[in-house]
């Protein structure tokens, strides 16, 4: 809508006014809903309701305890490949027009990311302990 207005020659100020109105509407809607829900709903508190929601099961342990970070390491490594892929796609599309220069540049980029992988590999991050 803002774009359409801009094309019709409206000034930036007018367009931002619309954005401001939308922001007010959105916050107003959320606030009204929450306040209404608080006012209308019958609040009967009980200890069962105050429990942590664990997919419907009764909680068995205290959630404040150390947990293994194995997934975290894999998520980090995934990031390496993810960034690589995100750059490789647009590069591959215009590969022909880039020529040798583009090839060398991408090899350097991949090599730098590979150093990260080699480091993680040597440090045993790929082992499931």
């Amino acid at each position, binding site marked *: 809508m803002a774009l359409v207005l801009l094309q019709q020659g409206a000034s*930036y100020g007018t367009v*931002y006014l619309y954005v401001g109105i939308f922001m007010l509407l959105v916050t107003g809607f959320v606030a009204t809903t929450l306040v209404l829900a608080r006012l209308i709903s019958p609040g009967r508190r009980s200890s069962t309701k105050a429990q942590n929601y664990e997919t419907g099961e009764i909680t068995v342990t205290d959630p404040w305890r150390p947990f293994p970070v194995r997934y975290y390491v894999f998520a980090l490594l995934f990031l390496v490949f993810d960034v690589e892929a995100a750059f490789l796609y647009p590069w591959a599309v215009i590969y022909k027009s880039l020529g040798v*220069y583009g090839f060398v540049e991408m090899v350097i980029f991949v090599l730098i990311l590979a*150093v990260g992988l080699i*480091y993680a590999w040597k*440090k045993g991050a790929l082992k499931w302990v």
Partner: protein
Amino acid sequence: MAVSGQAFIALLPELISTGFLIVVLLVGAFGESNAGVAAGLAALGSLAVFVSAAVLLATGFSGSFFGGGYVVDPFALYFKLIVAGSAFFAVLAAARWSGRTGDAPEYLTLILSVVLGASLLVSMRDLFGIFLSIELATIPSYAMVAFDRSRRESAEGGMKYLITGVIASSVLLYGIVLIYGVSGSAQLSDVANTFTGNLTPVALLGLGLMVSGFAFKVSAAPFHFWTPDAYQGAPTSAAAFLSVAPKAATFAVLLRILLEGMPGAAPTWTAVMAFLAIITMFVGNLFALRQRNVRRMLAYSSVAHSGYILAAFAALQGGGAAFAVQAVLIYTAAYAVMNMGAFLVIDLVGEDAKNYNGLVRTNPAAAASMGLFMAALVGIPPLSGFFGKLWIIIAGAQSGSILVYIVVGALVVNTVLSVPYYFGIIRNMILEEPTSETGGSKGNGAVRFSVYVLAILTTFFGLLIIPLSALVKASGLL
């Protein structure tokens, strides 16, 4: 499309730091317990960056590269020298300690990453390049603060720094995006066309958000809350390095953005800077007065010194503008030597004020160095801090603006305010009797060497001032 040979020369310091960074990391991966090799390579790397920047400066190399987004001028090279020089001392100070953690190569890689980010930062003329390199310098510093796994405060400081830092980065990015939206270009020269005398509300908002983001990075009040916790928790070498190198680079790029990107809006942002400077000076000094922990005291003192540098930013108007640029450059160099030195003494003596009792009798050399650093931080002539303050006062006097006179007045008041806590340490060292808590036997040769060299530089900064001011005059920003 292809990158010219000139561009490779322009990127020499960055290419060197990238190379050493990768090698040091691989040393960590492929060798067991070779902290010495990694430290040697990292020290060599930061020296090589220093030398390459010095050579580029000496040969008068300058130019604009990558579509005008990257610039090499004496101004940028000057800050690269400060960054690489402080990295060298940080590596020396960290060598033995990081070896004990068992992860020396990782820690040294983080230092080199900050060097890479900071030296890219001072050369950037493109707003998004600026954001990327500021993150490249900041993200490793979160890890550096949290690196000491033997102390809980280290993790706490790192966590606080990370969370507040991420918020500050997003605020900074939002400001940059708004500026980009208003001016239609991220190049500073194009931004200058939009940021003229009267700013639209959106432009003003962008400027305000960007300055807030930068204020966080240089720990200016009221965005300084992370500083004491982060510096107290951080390993000493990290606190020493992070309070100097990334801060110097951030001040440099802020100066470049304001002078190259928004010269027309100078009345607006000098007023903002004056406001920030006054608050920052008072907050830093008043909170430092109460500290018994030297590390925390120095953290607040670094907040106060950010305020002094911001005072020079406030003077970037009228007849004092050229002098104010010089003041920022000279103050940064002066601050780098004295503040790093003061932090590194903690590695020799200890972080509690009691550790300094009677130090002059048990370890005269460390006591003399600490005394010099403290006196320099106050601004006693002829030590380094004096010249920094002198330049700021002269710049303020020439600006011809009432607001700047007030800022300079606040600077003088704050210099007096800062005397008790700096001289409190000196008093403890001389007048108190040594006790069992008195330190001075800690540390190793590398730390001692760094402290003494920095003490010598602090003392004889006055001799450097003539070549330095010639260099600063040629910096080319104004």
